[in-house]
């Protein structure tokens, strides 16, 4: 079982396909869960503390907006943990914690520079593309240990 990071990191379709194939999908909701359901919430309601942007300093410089560093404090450790990646380019509907374009550029860059196997795709627009999309993901995940 490999740990596979998916981009967009909140994608339902990608995380589901990864789990179906018996691998572990690394997604942001898991990182959010650890933060908001911790027994000792230090900063209610969302437990966002000054420690978040400090963790993000590991991935982005101090002059980068705190929103990028805050997001990277959640996504950065996931990237470090990953053993493979599936990237869907230009989804066109990134919102919420995935709605920061600068963070997304940095996430894609860090994934690519990490040197793990990466599958690049785009979302399907018709049935034929969907079949190829699913088949490529199956083949990629089937080749992982």
């Amino acid at each position, binding site marked *: 079982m490999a740990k596979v990071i998916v981009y967009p990191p909140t994608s339902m379709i990608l995380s*589901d396909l990864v789990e179906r194939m018996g691998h572990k999908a690394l997604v942001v909701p898991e990182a959010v869960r650890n933060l*908001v359901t911790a027994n000792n919430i230090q900063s209610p*309601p969302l437990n966002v503390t000054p420690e978040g942007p400090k963790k993000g300093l590991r991935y982005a410089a101090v002059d980068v907006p705190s929103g990028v560093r805050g997001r990277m404090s959640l996504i950065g450790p996931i990237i470090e943990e990953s053993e493979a990646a599936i990237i869907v380019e230009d989804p066109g509907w990134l919102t919420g914690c995935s709605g920061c374009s600068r963070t997304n550029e940095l996430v894609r860059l860090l994934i690519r520079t990490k040197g793990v196997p990466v599958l690049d795709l*785009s979302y399907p627009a018709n049935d034929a593309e969907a*079949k190829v999309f*699913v088949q490529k993901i199956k083949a990629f995940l089937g080749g992982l240990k």
Partner: protein
Amino acid sequence: MLVTKYVITSSESNILPSDIAMKIYGSKYDVVVKETCFGVVINGEEDVINALVKEIRALDPAGIFIKDRGFPPGDPRRCRGRRGGGARPGFYMIESESKILPMISRALAWEGDIPAVPEKKRPLPIGRLEEIIKEDLS
């Protein structure tokens, strides 16, 4: 550890969110379930949820999709009833991806040959552009 997952049905699936909720109510598992318009939210111990997810997926393997969720169901920090209405922030991603779920479901159920799809046109790679410029200038 308590985990929360979304169970989302494709719009073409014969399984309704209420069917999934009824299956969970009738099961032996001790979980919290919340029915929504697009599926159900389940919350419980990780082992229990993983076993339950396998059973739910068996109802319609190609038409049911599972996604992790950070907040527990009905959490006042996310529940729109407590926030004065409006969709919660993560809903838009689900809404957008739900539109292509029927295609993904059909692709998962497909057992025939994979059709050849012409590759989409991509921007000219920078290396090739440099070569063209050098050729023209030389």
